[in-house]
């Protein structure tokens, strides 16, 4: 009997400890970390496309995959700027939430440019991909200029 009680209690404790974090609401810190993950993920294919556009990536024909990766990540951008997620260490500026219309426009520019990059990806036309990537860069830079606190660059 005693054994049963202990095991039942243990089962309850274990299942509670497993399910609790999953059920919990994401914190501001979580939202910040998720944004960082998406932004970090964008840097890889961006750096890679720029090298391919400059002829610095050998014979790789992987460029369409990089372009699609950016286009896919671009569809997630509108979810990652959760209000209150400018926790310590975050470079997100309050203007993101203070000037929502201006920010929405900047974000829409980035999403459109990234989608357009995805659309030219399959053609394999390096010049078209390079130009579409330039537009993506312009949108990224424009948004960072107004809405990211750059401490180093």
């Amino acid at each position, binding site marked *: 009997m005693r054994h049963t009680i202990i095991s039942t209690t243990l089962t309850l404790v274990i299942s509670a400890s497993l399910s609790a974090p999953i059920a919990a609401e994401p914190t501001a810190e979580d939202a910040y970390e998720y944004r960082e993950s998406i932004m970090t993920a*964008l*840097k*890889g*294919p*961006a*750096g*890679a496309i*720029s090298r391919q556009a*400059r002829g*610095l990536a050998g014979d790789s024909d992987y460029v369409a995959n990089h372009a699609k990766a950016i286009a896919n990540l671009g569809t997630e951008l509108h979810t990652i700027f959760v209000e209150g997620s400018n926790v310590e260490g975050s470079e997100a500026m309050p203007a993101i939430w203070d000037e929502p219309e201006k920010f929405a426009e900047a974000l829409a520019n980035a999403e459109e440019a990234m989608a357009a990059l995805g659309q030219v990806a399959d053609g394999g036309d390096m010049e078209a991909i390079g130009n579409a990537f*330039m537009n993506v*860069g*312009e949108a*990224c*830079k*424009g*948004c*960072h*200029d*107004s*809405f*990211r*606190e*750059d*401490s*180093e*660059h």
Partner: protein
Amino acid sequence: MCIGRLSIATLLLLIAMPASAEDASIARGEYLINAGGCVDCHTEDSDDAIPLTGGRAVESPFGTFYSPNITPDVETGIGAWSDDDFVSAFWEGEDPNGDHYYPAFPYTSYTGVSREDLLAMQAYLFSLDPIDKTTPEHELAWYISTRLAAGAWKMKNFDSERFVPDPDQPEQWNRGAYLVRHLGHCGECHTPRSSLGALQYDQELAGNVSGSDGEKIPNITPDRKDGIGKWSASDIEYFLQIGMLPDGDFVGSDMSAVIDHNTSKLTKEDRLAIAAYLKATPPLSSPD
């Protein structure tokens, strides 16, 4: 008859030539105005600002400077300036009345720019519509609030000196040196300053921990740890064109505006010249 025709043709040519030469000078001037980064500082930081009409606030440890209107309006701009007035502003750091400019106007770098380039820049500015706009007075700490203070600063920290190409260096290096050290005045932000605002040339381009607007300005010497030693010439050129860092991030900050108004408008050859010069500078650690 034949001579008559020739004379008319010659006359037409003579009339046409100065106009096209002037157009060429204006076009060259526009390019140089972009290379000189003039638009960024001389345009207010708002979406509807008219370029080059001044009024942009530049925060510094000594107070707030407001850039002047440099459109050719006679009353509020530079419309009444002679060629020599224009050149003297850049070479000597003096306005047409002989008053000293504060070094927020980077004549410490511009002093190396050639007279020919300056007059092309002036020709372009004078081709613009004159805009009547009075800009605010500077708001400065009391101890530098008179132009005499600017004069004293210049005596100690400024030499009027043109750029002289180094015959031992390739042409590309010399072009890069001219753009980086003089016209593009990169060191005005990227070189640390003394407590009195003097550029520390022994740490040229090694970064500035307290740049204008409180920004930390990066080291752009080829030091691999503190600077951009891991960047290739292509990385630098590409960055100056679209603002991408080698790791795939895109720049924000004041450099974003420099890229928009200045370096993205240069020829690839000029951006590569900047890259070649930067890669040939001594690698330096960042100041503390």
